[in-house]
Every structure is written in C-alpha cells, then in structure tokens.
C-alpha cells in the first residue's frame, strides 16, 4: 500500500463546488454559442465511499466524470482533491494527479488497445509513473493484479480480442487499480455488458473497494446497479443535481418530483406488486441547455410547477441529515 496522504483524513477526498461546464456549439462565427452541460454542481466524496451518479441521457453525468478526470475544462467552479484545488492543474502536476484518479470506461471493446498484450495494457500506468523497476517486476505485478480481478495467469501474454466483454472489463479494472488510486471514476462500467455478467463486475468493484479502500464516482443510468453499490446517490437533471443523499434516503424517501418519477419507472420483479403500483409519468422534454429557461430545470415536466418555479431556480437545500433537494416544493 502507498504511504498515507499527509493531509487530514477528516476532509472529503473529493469536493466539487459550483462546477459549470460549457461545450461550444458548432457554427456562430461572430458570437460563439455554447451549451451549458453542467451548472452549479456541487458534491463531496469521502474516503472509501461510493457516490452513485444517476440521470437520463444528456443530464451531464458523464460530463461530471470527465471534469473530475480533467478531460474537460471547468467553465466555473472548483474541484478539490484532498483539499487541494486541481481545477486548473496542467502539465506534469496534472500527470502526477492521474496516478491518484483513475477511470473504468464504459466500452470494454474500444478501451483496450487491440495491438497490445494484456501485460502491456495493465502495466502501462505502472511504467509511465515509474512504479515498475523492470520488466520482470511489471510482469509479477500484473499477474498479481489479474489474479485480484479474477483472470487466469496465462492472460498476460494474450491480446484483448481473446477475451469476452466481461473479461475485458476486468482487464480495464486491473489497469485502473494498478496504481492503487484513491478515486476511481467508473463511467457506466457495466452498461455494455450482458446482464448475467453485470452482477459479477459490480461485485468485483465492491470487493476491490473493501480491499483497497478506494472511493468510487459511479456513473450509471441503471438504478438497480446504483442501489446495489452506492453509499450515497446524486440525481442529475438538465445539468444540475436535483437531489443528493444517502442511498436509502433517496430510494425509500425521494423528495424531488423527478426522483419520484425516475424511481417509479423501475419495474418490480413481481407481477402482482408491479401491476398494483402507481406509475408516475411526467411527460415533456428536458430543457434546451443551449438556452436554458430561468427557474427550475424540471419546470416543463413538473406537475407542481408554479410561477416561482418558472422564475427562480431552487437551491440545493438540506432537508435532513445529508439529504438535500433542489425544489421549492419538496414532497
């Protein structure tokens, strides 16, 4: 295990404050138009904790992951890692930060270089951060890592195409944990896998967390998976966090109308109960993020929206211990 960090362990590992990200839109020669993918997003992740990030397509969940990984520039706000502002880190300092913040990508087919052997793929982080003394050392470490993620020893000398999707994702996980990072951003790590394999990979991630003590930023649109793995959950809508709190609070006692609608869309594997329950449908489209309306982002679909919702955007306010909702009329 690496040396313990010098800072106080009471601080959250990762703190994101008032983060805004804009993507430029094509066209518009005189006035560059942009698209507000994230607006005023803030959350914290403690050491060894998993924060599940849930939202529909276009809600900005992947953008949060990319911003934390410093793959996109923050337009506004700050990202604190171990209490240090890393929002504008560049060059060598950013490269050193990468040793502590790793990623598991969604698509296990494109995320492994088809021309490299598993040995070289998994050893790459070790090599580029100077953690492997020699080829033999790297080989020993990679064998150990493959064993940790449940792959056979003889996998080291094979190419990625010899493996199934689930096995490939295990290789990607081995690469992510090679440096024993403090934070792993898992961007939809199981959505590209067969359902039967999803559970294995999610359980593997949980086991590894218990062993290595890493924190996860777990991005997913699958509520069942998030409920299984996350300690805390943040619900995103239209580039803002609408509700954040402990897993059970979110799933048992959702306070935001959107969260309720989202949870009611999950089928129950019991036909009698499934038929008996009430399905909330809030029809409508997500807001146009190139020209967001004033007020709440959910106003167009919310059955409770009134004049105030259309004019003033609701702040993310704590309702209970650690459970916050961005709504003027929390349920």
């Amino acid at each position, binding site marked *: 295990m690496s040396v313990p960090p010098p800072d106080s362990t009471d601080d959250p590992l990762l703190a994101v404050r008032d983060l805004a990200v804009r993507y430029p839109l094509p066209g518009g020669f005189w006035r560059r138009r942009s698209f507000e993918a994230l607006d005023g997003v803030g959350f914290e992740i403690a050491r060894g904790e998993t924060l599940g990030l849930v939202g529909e397509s276009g809600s900005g969940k992947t953008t949060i992951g990319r911003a934390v990984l410093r793959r996109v520039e923050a337009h506004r706000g700050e990202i604190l890692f171990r209490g240090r502002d890393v929002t504008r880190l560049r060059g060598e300092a950013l490269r050193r930060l990468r040793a502590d913040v790793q990623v598991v990508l969604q698509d296990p087919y494109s995320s492994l270089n088809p021309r490299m052997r598993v040995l070289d793929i998994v050893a790459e982080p070790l090599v580029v951060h100077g953690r492997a003394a020699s080829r033999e050392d790297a080989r020993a470490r990679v064998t150990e890592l493959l064993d940790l993620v449940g792959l056979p020893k003889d996998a080291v000398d094979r190419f990625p*195409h010899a493996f199934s999707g689930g096995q490939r994702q295990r290789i990607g996980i081995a690469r992510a944990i090679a440096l024993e990072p403090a934070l792993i951003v898992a961007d939809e790590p199981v959505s590209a896998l067969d359902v039967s394999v999803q559970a294995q990979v999610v359980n593997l991630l949980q086991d590894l967390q218990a062993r290595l003590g890493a924190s996860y930023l777990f991005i997913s649109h699958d509520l069942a998976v998030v409920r299984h793995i996350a300690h805390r959950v943040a619900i995103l809508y239209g580039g803002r966090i609408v509700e954040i709190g402990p897993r059970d609070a979110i799933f048992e006692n959702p306070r935001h109308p959107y969260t309720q609608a989202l949870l009611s869309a999950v089928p129950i594997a019991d036909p009698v109960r499934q038929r008996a329950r009430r399905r909330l449908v809030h029809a409508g489209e997500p807001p146009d993020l190139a020209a967001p309306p004033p007020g709440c982002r959910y106003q167009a679909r919310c059955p409770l929206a009134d004049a105030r919702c259309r004019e003033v955007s609701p702040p993310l306010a704590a309702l209970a211990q650690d459970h916050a909702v961005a709504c003027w009329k929390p349920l």
Partner: protein
Amino acid sequence: MSDAAPGRARRGAAILALAAELARDRLALAGLLGLVLVVVAAIFAPLLAPYDPAAQTVLARLRPPAWLAGGDWSHPLGTDHLGRDVLSRVIHGARATMLIGVGVVALAGTFGVAVGLLAGYVGGRVDGVLMRVVDVQISFPGILLILLIVSVLGPSTTTIVVVLAATNWMVFARVTRGAVLSARRSGYVEAAQIAGCRDGRVIVRHILPNLVSPLSTLAILEFTNVVLAEAAISFLGLGVQPPATSWGLDVASGRDYVFVAWWLVTFPGLAIMATVLCANLLASWLRVTADPQEREKRFARALAARRGRARASREGERTP
C-alpha cells in the same frame, strides 16, 4: 546493464520467429526476394550488365529479343533505336528508379506523416491551418511547380527527389490525419492519457501502430506514382539526364517505336510492374502481421490447412 543481454537475445529470437512466419507465406516471400533482386541489380549494375547501357551500336539497331526471328543471344532482350542493349539498360535503370522512388516516398512520407500527426493530434486551429496548406498545395498544378523548381535548380537526381516529394506529401498528411483523428477518439487512447502517458508515448504506442496498414499501402501506391511521374519528367527532359537511364525514361522514349519494336517499352514496363507487385505482396503480409487479430486468424488458417492435408494424405494411404 544486466538487462541488455537477455533483451538482445529476446529481440534476436523475435526476429527469427518473424522470418519463419514470412517463410511460411510463399507470396510474401516471393515479394521480398523480388525486391532483394531489384536492389541487388541496382547496387551491382556495372558488374551484372553485359554492356555499357549508353554504348550505341548503329549496326545493331532495333534488334528483337533473342527468341524471336532476327534476334540473337548477344542481346538477350534486343536493342533500341540507337543500338543500346535493352537488358543492360533495364539493369542500370533500376538504380535511378529505386533511388528516386524510395527517396521520394521516404521524404514525402516523413514530412506528410509529421504534418498529419500534428494536425490530427493537436487539432483545433493548428489542424485548420495545416489542412488549408494541404488544400492549397493540392489545388496548385504539380507539373507547373516541378517545371519551376527544376528550371531554377537545374535537373539532377536530388532535385527530382525534392520536387516529387514537394508535390506528393499531401496525400500522406491527409491519410495520417484521418487515421489519427479516429484513433484519438478511441477509448484506449483516452485510457492511456488518463493513465498518465505523455503525448509522445500516446502517439508512439497507441496511435502510430494504427497507421502501419494504411501507410504501407499508400506508400506502395505512391511508389508507382512516383516511378511514372519521374518518367514523365524525364520525358520532358527535366528528369534523369542521358546517358544515365531509368525505367520511366526508357518507357517514355520507347513509345515512338512501340509498333516496330515492342520490347523497348515492354521490358522496362515489366520491371516497374514486377517491382510494384513484389512491394504489394510484401505490404499485404506486413498489414496482417501488424494486426494481432488478423495474425492469429492467419495462423489458425495455416494450422487448419496443415491438418487437412495431413488427414487427406492419411486417407490416401489407406485407400490403395
């Protein structure tokens, strides 16, 4: 270092294994041997050629090849309109043709790949500017540029190489940029960058290997282009200067006699075709070898074929 010796041994073993793999593919081996033959001919031309390629014999003009009526074995491939020995000219022509062809492809390829890498990897404004330069250069008539530069610098082999490289690098830049753009967006490049690879390593380890197959194909196509372009320039009197010779020059100057002496264009033409064919055979082997998945498929096919043959021969023994 204690690491150096086993490293070298491993590399030696890898080269031997590669050679064995090449030897199993008969077409690729034929291609390699053909290319070696051309290179040997180019290097040892004065020793191999029966005559001085520029020596004129007015009494022996337009002799047909030895196997036709009127031909004899003193000029196996006949003579041209000035009584020069065609075989000797083909052997000597390999020199200029290979030098110019390989030189231009190497120079244009290096420059074009560098521009394409820069444009594709950096992107944004750099990409925009570099690609507009490529567009301008492509729309500029090449032959005009060639005439301009050659008339200023005077014809020489170096001038031809530089001039042809200056008019042929753009296609390398475009192909490279396209391949880099698609590789740069792939998950494994993103993963490598997040793992903390520096740009140099990302380019060398993750992006360049994707260029092997399109660029080797392109380089060979360009080689044929260059051979013919050199012929055109030589035909205009701005390229290879007599008494030196090249295959292209001979094809060009033999055109006037194509109805009375077909061998003047045919043999240098065949030499060009054979060289390009050999290079193509080798390149298609290289393309498969550079891709681990294709390589394993080839290996499996070879294994299956061998088993099939073994079974057939066993059954053949049993029947009689």
